[in-house]
C-alpha cells in the first residue's frame, strides 16, 4: 500500500463515527497502518498453514495419479486399441460377410432344386447332386468363421479381465457412472417391447413350451388394461 502524509477525511463531520477508537478520538492513519500490518501478519500465518494443507493434498493427488498411470499401463489400452479391437472388428465383419455369402449360395442351390423340372428324373437327379455338392462347398465357411469367432471370444475375455482388474485397482464403482441418455432410451425400449433377443441353450423356451402357453386358458383372460400395462 502506498503511504501518504495527507490526513484522509475518514468520517463525516458531526456524525457519530463508527471509526472512533476506544478513547473516542478519531484514529490516525498510523493506527490504520498498525492494524493493517497486524492483519497482514495474521493472514501470513494462516496462508502458511493453508499452503501446507494444499501441498499435502497435492502430494496425495500426485500419488493417486501415479498409481492410476501404473494401472493404465497394466491395462495396455494402446495394445487393445491398436491391435486387438481392430482385429476383432475385422473378424466380425469377415464372419458376417462369409455367413452371408454362404447363405446366399445355399439358398440359390435350394431354389434351383425346388424350381427344377422333375419330369425327367435322370436330369433332375444330376441337377440335385450338382447343387448338393455346391451346398457342401458353401458350408466350408463354418471352419473359418468358427476360428474367427473363437478369436473374438478370447479378445472379449481378455478385455473383460483387464477392465475388471483396472476397476478393482482404481476402486471404481459401476453405479457411480451415469449412463448416456441414448443408452437409457435404448434400454427403456428393449424393456418396454420385450426385446430380449435369442436366449442361450437351456434358457430358451422350446416350441412345446410355447405351444403349452398358447393353449393355456388363463392367458386368454387378459384384459386390454393388462396388455396396455405392458407398454406403460
Amino acid at each position, binding site marked *: 500500500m502506498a503511504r501518504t502524509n495527507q490526513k484522509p477525511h475518514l468520517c463525516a463531520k458531526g456524525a457519530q463515527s463508527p471509526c472512533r477508537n476506544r478513547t473516542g478520538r478519531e484514529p490516525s492513519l498510523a493506527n490504520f497502518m498498525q492494524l493493517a500490518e497486524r492483519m497482514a501478519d495474521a493472514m501470513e500465518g494462516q496462508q502458511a498453514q493453508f499452503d501446507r494443507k494444499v501441498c499435502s493434498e497435492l502430494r496425495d493427488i500426485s500419488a493417486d495419479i501415479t498409481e492410476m498411470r501404473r494401472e493404465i499401463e497394466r491395462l495396455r489400452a494402446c495394445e487393445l486399441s491398436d491391435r486387438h479391437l481392430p482385429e476383432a472388428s475385422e473378424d466380425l465383419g469377415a464372419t458376417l460377410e462369409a455367413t*452371408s455369402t454362404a*447363405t*446366399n449360395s445355399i*439358398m440359390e442351390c*435350394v*431354389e434351383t432344386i*425346388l424350381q427344377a423340372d422333375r419330369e425327367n428324373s435322370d436330369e433332375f437327379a444330376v441337377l440335385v447332386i450338382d447343387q448338393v455338392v455346391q451346398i457342401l462347398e458353401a458350408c466350408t465357411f463354418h471352419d473359418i468363421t468358427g476360428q474367427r469367432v473363437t478369436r473374438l471370444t478370447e479378445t472379449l475375455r481378455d478385455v473383460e479381465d483387464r477392465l475388471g482388474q483396472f476397476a478393482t485397482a482404481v476402486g471404481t464403482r459401476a453405479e457411480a457412472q451415469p449412463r448416456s441418455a441414448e443408452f437409457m432410451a435404448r434400454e427403456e425400449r428393449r424393456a418396454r*417391447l*420385450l*426385446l*430380449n*433377443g*435369442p*436366449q442361450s441353450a437351456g*434358457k*430358451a*423356451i*422350446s*416350441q412345446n*413350451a*410355447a*405351444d403349452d*402357453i*398358447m393353449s393355456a386358458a388363463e*392367458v*386368454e383372460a*387378459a384384459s386390454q388394461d*393388462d*396388455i396396455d400395462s*405392458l*407398454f406403460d
Partner: protein
Amino acid sequence: MAIDPSMPILVVDDYKTMVRIIRNLLKQLGFSEVDDAADGTEALQKLKDRKYGLIISDWNMEPMTGYELLREVRGDESLNRTPFIMVTAESKTENVIAAKKAGVNNYIVKPFNAATLKNKIDAVFGE
C-alpha cells in the same frame, strides 16, 4: 375355416434371408401369393393397401416391432380378424405370454422347420 392356398400372405422380417426361407417354405406348402415387408411400419402400409389372409411376423425389428404391429392390427377394426403368427427368436416365456395377451394366433420359436410352420398354419385355420 378352410385354407385357401391362393390367399395372400404377408411375411414381415427385417432379415432378407429369413423372408426368403419362409417364402420358399410357403411355396412348398402350396401358397403362391407371398408378399413381404421389412418392418411393422411397412407392413401396416401394405395391410392398408391390400387384404391379406395371414400375417407371419418376426418380433425384433426397427422401427416398429412385430409386437407393436400385432397390437396395431388387433386395434384396427378392418384388420383385427386377420390371423397373425409370430415367428421369432424371442424365446422367453414372457414374450409368448405377452404375444398371446395381445392376440397372436400362434407362436413359432426360431429356429423352426417346415413341419412346424405347416402345423401352426393348419392350427390357425382349424385344420
